[in-house]
């Protein structure tokens, strides 16, 4: 019987104990796996979200989109940038707060995104708004808007219906008359949070709602480059050094340094704590198990089992507990990650399509490596016990005991 078979029989000998040990490893392993998914999950998800909609570069006046001042001459800036040879198209976005009047009397707070496209001559790039139409069609003119599913449900609106909204275009302290707009479609807004109600339309529609009181300020310019995004960003910076042109990688890098970094740090801390916890507990389990079988081990040594063999038995037992528990930890971890992701996505301002826990092969590889290291380290002390066991003294103690 080889060491692994022997270890299996040792485990099965005490099924309750073995099952609990394995379950414990599964629970700890699930947490470990989730921390590894979290460490890069947010960045991976954000990068994917940014890349998905086809814009390579974001141009803002501040440090990050919608965090900081607006671009004062945004419309002019978009035209300048659109003329750059490496630029394929520019989408300018202006966001305003708005209240939607409801028959019940309670107004619904929403965010109104007004967009417009600028392209270099001859590219024929069609407008690609930052939303996806689910039902109906996109807004066509200054009197039409698309709304999010949440607004449609709360205000009981469908494509073709009218809505009255009161935007705040300059500051929160405006009291503009309500404007009636026609709902042309229901859309999904990828960068809106789950609690954020969003309206989308053309820049002209926003101007219309704001009674022309918008000016040229925009929040962000979304740029599509013809070739290399870094080259295009450099060209934009050269043309407009007062603005901040960031490639998607730059945005992700910036987020990594700020709010996102907390999750990486906490995942590192929790990974370290989880691994230490697992090593400690498995070491104790194995040590107690070995101490209960010292007589048997001494007898096997007396019969001719080598030191290496009894050490391998202990290591195999550790490998089995951690191996089986580790395998169980994967589906458990994915289930737990779904729950934790739902909790964290409740954070205000987090885009609905952003995820904190993202499965990556790299995370799986690290998880398996850590489990392997855990099995090895946890077995070190009990291996030392069996390898240095004084055979004669132990046999004597067993008789006396």
């Amino acid at each position, binding site marked *: 019987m080889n060491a692994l078979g022997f270890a299996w029989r040792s485990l099965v000998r005490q099924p309750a104990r073995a099952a609990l040990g394995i379950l414990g490893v599964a629970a700890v392993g699930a947490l470990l796996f989730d921390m590894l998914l979290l460490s890069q999950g947010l960045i991976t998800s954000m990068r994917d979200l940014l890349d998905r909609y086809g814009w390579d570069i974001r141009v803002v006046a501040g440090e990050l989109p919608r965090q900081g*001042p607006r671009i004062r001459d945004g419309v002019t800036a978009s035209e300048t940038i659109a003329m750059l040879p490496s630029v394929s198209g520019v989408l300018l976005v202006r966001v305003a707060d708005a209240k939607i009047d409801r028959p019940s009397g309670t107004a619904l707070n929403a965010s109104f995104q007004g967009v417009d496209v600028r392209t270099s001559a001859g590219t024929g790039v069609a407008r690609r708004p930052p939303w996806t139409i689910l039902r109906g069609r996109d807004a066509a003119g200054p009197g039409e808007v698309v709304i999010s599913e949440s607004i449609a449900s709360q205000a009981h609106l469908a494509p073709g219906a009218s809505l009255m909204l009161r935007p705040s275009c300059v500051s929160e302290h405006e009291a503009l008359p309500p404007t009636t707009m026609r709902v042309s479609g229901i859309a999904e807004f990828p960068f809106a949070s789950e609690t954020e109600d969003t309206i989308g339309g053309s820049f002209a529609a926003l101007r219309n709602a704001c009674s022309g009181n918008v000016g040229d300020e925009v929040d962000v310019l979304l740029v599509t480059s013809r070739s290399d995004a870094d080259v295009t960003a450099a060209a934009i910076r050269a043309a407009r050094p007062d603005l901040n042109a960031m490639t998607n990688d730059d945005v992700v890098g910036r987020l990594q*340094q700020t709010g996102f970094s907390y999750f990486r740090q906490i995942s590192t801390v929790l990974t370290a704590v989880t691994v230490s916890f697992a090593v400690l507990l498995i070491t104790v389990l194995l040590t107690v198990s070995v101490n209960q079988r010292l007589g048997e081990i001494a007898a096997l040594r007396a019969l001719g089992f080598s030191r290496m063999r009894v050490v391998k038995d202990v290591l195999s037992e550790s490998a089995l507990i951690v191996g089986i528990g580790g395998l169980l930890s994967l589906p458990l971890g994915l289930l737990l990650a779904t729950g934790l992701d739902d909790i964290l996505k409740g*954070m205000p301002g987090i885009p609905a399509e952003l995820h904190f826990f993202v499965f990556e092969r790299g995370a799986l590889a690290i998880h398996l490596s850590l489990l392997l290291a855990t099995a090895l380290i946890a077995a070190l002390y009990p291996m030392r016990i069996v390898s240095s066991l004084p055979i004669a003294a132990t046999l004597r103690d067993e008789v006396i005991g």
Partner: protein
Amino acid sequence: MKGFTGFKGFRGFRGFAGSGLFVALVLVLSVEASTQSVRLKPDTTSTPPDILITRQLAESEHLSVGSVVTIAIDPAGDRAREFRIAGIYEPTPNPSRLGVVPREVRLHLPDLLDLTRPTGGVPGTEYVSSINVALTDPNDAAAFANDVNARMPGVVALPSSQAAGSAGPFRVLERFHLAIAVVTIIAATVFLLALTIMLVDERRQTVGVLRLIGLPVRRILIQIFIEGVIVAAAGAAFGLLLAVASERLINGFFQWKYDTALVFVRITRDVAVTCTSIAVPLGAAATVVASWALLRRSGLRLVRR
């Protein structure tokens, strides 16, 4: 995330303003706007107005108390004015701005208004983001807020304790950490059961002999329960010590990492009581559950090898 604009301000500024007002007015600048628009340029002219700057700004721009700097709102530097650095302060840690280095400047309100007023703007038509009010009796906060709301339409007054809406991210983090804690407790409980089963099994012969000489199961269980409580209490105490040590390590690490005075982990009395009240009953219960399975067997079976 949007920065705090309702955050309690720097009280020390009260004396600095040289005012005899009961209520301190503190101006909190929007950090983004100020750091974007401020250009610091050491200069030497006669007695400019005083300002305070954060330690982080002083370190990054190599400034010190007494330095005279030029501040402008316009990126081109138009309408710049000189100010003298009267002091360097440690900013109140703002958890919602974690990772952002607080490069802040604090001015007297009149100086700021002069600096930021648009050309041709009429003095007195400016607006501030928020006003923080310190009452002589903090218990009057709710009544005061209601009074202000009634007298000044267009203004929203809130007691500080109700500003929790802006703490939304931290509520979420609280739930997240709680979920992690629950999983950890479950894993620990499972391991604990496994260990107690093993440890109880080691004493099966002793227990078997006690049964054979006539001790009732209940008596043995009480003994085991008491032992379990003692061991669990000792374990909980050790765990708390470990937690306190970890608290220092974690806070030290993150405070160094983010150059902040923010406290990330705090072991409060409530936390200690909650942990102990979970750990001790769990430990005692695990011992009793593990022993119960053993005590269901006859004494002879327990004694037999």
